[in-house]
């Protein structure tokens, strides 16, 4: 069992819901990213979705695009991130899931990619542009390295494919709340509980919901039906604003920590 699987097992036993914050790697620099990761509270957060910047993120809205572009403009390289993660070691107390375009995985080679990320302490991988039908290589390599694979289920996913997605996703399935791209939205769609139910019936070990979750009330509502709430753009918007003011390092990390703690109030509210 890797740390991510252990964390989900522990929460399942205790009936604890979780927050899953998304953080862009390398925005504004890798040192700041590590600073943020060490400040993520492990009591409320089951893991961090660590977004690897990509030049053409077709599933992402303008907020995450801007963050990726800034990281790449400032010279982000995967090798630098791996170095920084290895150096940080146990000071990062939450499991990490790499959210990464298959373009990047494929360029490094599927096996080297998972081996290098596992060696850097990453527990899971989610490629938002890799559907289950194309994922055999990644699943085999990840399983050899003890890395979890997580797949996305969407409102448009046909029933015959939900079972395959559920079976291949360990310890959780990422349920996309709405059709569309990442970004903040005002409310949750009324058909969401039915979507969670379909996924549980298809055999999902756990279900975490993302897309459009930006406020503690959203976290609360999502965690009434699912095992965790994934928050991306709402955090990255703060990262964008702070980075635009030229902030980096501990002062920026403190602001993200405060935002995460604020969202986490939805877990107990």
């Amino acid at each position: 069992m890797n740390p991510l699987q252990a964390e989900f097992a522990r929460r399942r036993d205790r009936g604890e819901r979780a927050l899953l914050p998304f953080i862009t790697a390398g925005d504004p620099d890798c040192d700041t990213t590590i600073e943020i990761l060490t400040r993520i509270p492990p009591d409320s957060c089951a893991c961090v979705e660590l977004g690897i910047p990509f030049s053409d993120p077709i599933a992402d809205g303008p907020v995450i695009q801007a963050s990726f572009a800034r990281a790449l403009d400032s010279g982000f390289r995967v090798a630098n991130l791996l170095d920084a993660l290895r150096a940080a070691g146990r000071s990062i107390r939450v499991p990490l899931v790499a959210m990464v375009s298959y373009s990047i995985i494929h360029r490094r080679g599927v096996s080297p990619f998972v081996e290098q990320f596992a060696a850097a302490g990453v527990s899971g991988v989610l490629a938002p542009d890799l559907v289950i039908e194309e994922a055999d290589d990644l699943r085999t390599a990840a399983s050899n390295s003890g890395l979890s694979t997580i797949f996305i289920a969407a409102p448009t996913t046909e029933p015959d494919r939900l079972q395959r997605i559920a079976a291949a996703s360990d310890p959780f399935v990422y349920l996309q709340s709405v059709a569309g791209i990442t970004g903040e939205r005002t409310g949750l769609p009324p058909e969401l509980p039915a979507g969670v139910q379909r996924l549980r019936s298809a055999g999902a070990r756990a279900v975490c919901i993302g897309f459009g979750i930006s406020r503690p009330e959203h976290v609360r509502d999502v965690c009434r039906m699912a095992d965790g709430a994934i928050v991306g753009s709402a955090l990255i918007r703060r990262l964008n604003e702070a980075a635009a003011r030229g902030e980096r390092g501990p002062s920026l990390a403190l602001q993200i920590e405060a935002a995460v703690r604020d969202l986490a109030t939805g877990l107990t509210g």
Partner: protein
Amino acid sequence: MTQPTTPSATQRGRFGPFGGQYVPEVLMAAVRELERAYDAARADLTFQEELDGLLRDYVGRPSPLYAARRLSEHCGGAQILLKREDLNHTGAHKINNTLGQALLARRMGKRRIIAETGAGQHGVATATACAALGLECVVYMGVEDVRRQALNVYRMRLMGATVIAVESGQRTLKDAINEAMRDWMGSVGRTHYIIGSVMGPHPFPTMVRDFQSVIGRETREQCRERIGRLPEVVTACVGGGSNAAGIFFPFIDDTGVRLIGVEAAGEGLIGVRHAATISRGRPGVLHGMMTIVLQDDDGQTAPVHSVSAGLDYPGVGPEHAWWHTSGRVEYVAATDDEALAAFELLSRMEGIIPALETAHAIAHAVKIAGHLPRSAALVVNLSGRGDKDCVEVARLRGGA
């Protein structure tokens, strides 16, 4: 070396190792629906008849095969034959595909169409098909291309399309595709995305190639009538590769016919100011497909450059990647300067102003014609006309 080629897409739209469906989950239902709808349409005689009728009466097909005597004389070698796709309604081959896909969208009950465009030819062809069939049309176009192709932007708007200028990334074709895909992810229930080239996730590369293959079928027929045999060489420019796939595909099994795709060498293949994907790229994943791409060691898409907005793309259709790997098609590149010279040469020699994209194929034809015997026939796919480029060429060369 010529290995056997797979003429049609295999399972999940693979061409050897290339192709596939590398899309966000939210689009899977749509590409599967499209696959089923296209299979049904292809087997439906009334669909084919309606498309053939439009190609004949609306587009003006068949397009002529014109013997370019003065250009052939000038080169002093092979007889150069021009497949006149520039004479199609809207002035390029793009209309063959957009009418096919717009008919398919209507059949699927989708009344809203989105498209990306680089040079604007595909955007114009999509706006045209939508006007003719009464469909809503939204076209994504990079800000840089909106500037370079102002006339086409006006044509699209005149025909009722909404043109959205894309500010992200390099602000060219690649970024317009990103933005169109983002639109599609949120509107997929009522929207069809008319991809303009033989690229993207399966079934697009196969479907677009099929709709464009009318070019190659006519060319075979016309060569038999005109010269009593198949040509020795067929050449076409390659950005995404739809006009090339359309003219090559019906010749793929005729191994005696040399097929040559011409990419954009930009300011030269040494350095990064080019868009010669096959000549300089390597296998990778972009825009829903496994293909040959220009990217850095981290898998980030490389910046590309071409004087022609339609070739300014860091990927290529997966079937071209396969034809290259299997050795069936040769891929070469022509520079910006060579294309500009060919643009002027064809205008002066034949009174035909080619699109800057097409000018790359003309440039290569001029390069090789003199080395071929006079008895040889060299077909160039004249994929589009160059009126749209006159302002930009005048700016680059002076003389406006």
